[in-house]
């Protein structure tokens, strides 16, 4: 066979299968699948809550603090509201807000980090010192302070969590941009005459998207916890809104009636765990060591 024919053959063969001998594909990762299933389920619940929930989450007409039964699967709380319905409706607050929150933090962080990494010098210095300042405080404390300053409202809690979350994205994007700037393929592009902007869009952005998404997936869980935490402390969702964190707070007032706090707590747990599993799987899949072709045995 001629060299060209052999190579054509080899190239076509390779094209048909990606050379990743040792990384398990998505459908072989049970935890990630479980995570996706859970989030999917919650999404469905969030969308269809008004149709699924047996009762109005705000209706206070049921027996107070009734234990879980056939009529009330999760029991009732101290104001006579059905806990099950409230948990279902809680998804309509927590899930969309967590996503919005992360997108906002990611967006702000990416822009700030990108600018810092790209321009370097004093711009980089100032921006990163601001990020450091935010990092210096424990997340919940700073979020508390911001939320309290802005006033106890769900919207302000969201803003508070965004303020606390953007620096991690900024740091990550900055380091990705810095690494990409000295990547050989970027240098090659610049030798061919590419401008800085062109390099940013064509070469840096596609390689930065992956790690940022992984961070986001892992961070959603965190965001949910922060948001619920703020509501738990009375700084987020205000009564009578059915928000999981606030419901857990009510549960601490009625410790003996365990169902009041337990079920919303479990809801938070499942969502956070699910996002963590997804994030872990994403990170493994995008890890350059397992994603690269095996080079020589």
């Amino acid at each position, binding site marked *: *066979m*001629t*060299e060209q024919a*052999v*190579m054509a*053959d*080899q190239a076509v*063969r*390779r094209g048909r*299968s*990606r*050379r*990743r*001998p*040792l990384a398990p*594909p998505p459908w072989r990762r049970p935890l990630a699948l479980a995570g996706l299933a859970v989030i999917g389920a919650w999404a469905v619940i969030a969308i269809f809550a008004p149709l699924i929930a047996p009762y109005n989450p705000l209706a206070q007409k049921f027996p107070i603090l009734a234990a879980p039964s056939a009529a009330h699967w999760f029991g009732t709380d101290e104001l006579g509201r059905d806990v099950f319905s409230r948990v279902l409706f809680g998804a309509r607050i927590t899930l969309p807000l967590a996503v919005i929150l992360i997108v906002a933090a990611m967006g702000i962080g990416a822009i700030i980090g990108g600018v810092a990494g790209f321009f370097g010098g004093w711009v980089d210095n100032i921006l990163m010192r601001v990020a450091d300042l935010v990092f210096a405080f424990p997340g919940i404390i700073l979020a508390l302070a911001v939320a309290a300053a802005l006033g106890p409202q769900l919207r302000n809690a969201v803003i508070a969590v965004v303020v606390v979350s953007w620096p991690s994205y900024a740091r990550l994007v900055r380091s990705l941009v810095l690494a990409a700037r000295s990547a050989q393929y970027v240098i090659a592009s610049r030798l061919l005459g590419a401008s800085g902007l062109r390099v940013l869009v064509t070469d840096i952005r596609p390689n930065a998207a992956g790690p940022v998404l992984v961070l986001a997936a892992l961070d959603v869980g965190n965001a949910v916890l922060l948001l619920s935490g703020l509501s738990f402390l009375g700084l987020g969702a205000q009564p009578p809104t059915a928000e999981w964190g606030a419901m857990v707070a009510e549960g601490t007032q009625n410790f003996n009636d365990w169902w009041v706090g337990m079920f919303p707590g479990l809801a938070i747990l499942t969502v956070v765990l699910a996002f963590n599993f997804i994030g872990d799987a994403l990170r493994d899949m995008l890890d350059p060591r397992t994603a690269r072709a*095996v*080079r*020589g*045995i």
Partner: protein
Amino acid sequence: MNELLRVEHLSVALPTRSGYHKAVDDLSFAVDAGEIMGIAGESGSGKTITALSLFGLLPPGARVTGSIRLDGTDLTALSPRQLRDVRGRQLAMVSQDPATALHPILPVGTQLTEHMRHHLGIDKAEARLRAAALLETVRIPDPERALRAYPGQFSGGMRQRIAIAVALAAEPRLLVADEPTTALDVTVQAGILRLLDRLCRERGMAVIVITHDLGVMSATAGRLAVMYAGRLAEAGPTSGLLTRPRHPYTRGLLDALPHPGAQGEGTAPLVAIGGSPPSLGRVPDGCPFHPRCKYAEASCAAERPEPVPVAAGHLLACPPDPLRVSVS
């Protein structure tokens, strides 16, 4: 010469997305005490997997069949704990990248003595003495000072010498050197090759040198095994194999080398073997080399060639044997 290592019908299958594929396929060879044996091949030939299988350091999920006998003991039948004892004490390895072979934040002395004390059971003072002696053996200047220094303070060639010293610390009977000089400059390489040769002669230690560089093989190895796509292509005394190769792949490798006595003002092209070695799981049927072989016949695509003796100590896995030297 007494036989130290005998590998028989070794096959190693690795898990991939498309199932298990053999990285090493029915490999057999033997190494005598005090000799230097070379295993040559390009990437994908299975040479490194062969080395790793001697140590039981294969990737998780690897399936091994066949036997690896070190002085009679079958290494494949040992428990992980027993294998750990053999590793380092009787078998040692030096690999390509000296930067990752040595612990970056432990002093050189500690890396040597720790190894020694574990395997030889000697006390600290004795170990330190021996460590200094080892560094001297591998020609590290000022051994006392070197013991206190960190690997990062040495050049690549020096680090490789230190890595060799660490490998020798427990006085192994067999040293496996996987591309030991590939990352080094040519003059530094010369020093390391001389060192390995001297150590082998002085200590009666057997060495398996694994490399794609036939020049290195020619200089150090007494016997040579050429691997292709996990299988043995040809094996025998180095001088015979390199001057009168019988396997078309060996011939191709030699032809592809820049020729020392080349005519022409440096514009002669190199004779390359067309195509590239097959990757895991894409090994052609029959003889794995037949798609790239200019002597290939119809039978080559159908029948799998087995190594057969064609001269004293010379095995060949090529039934058509197109390169046999006719009596002139």
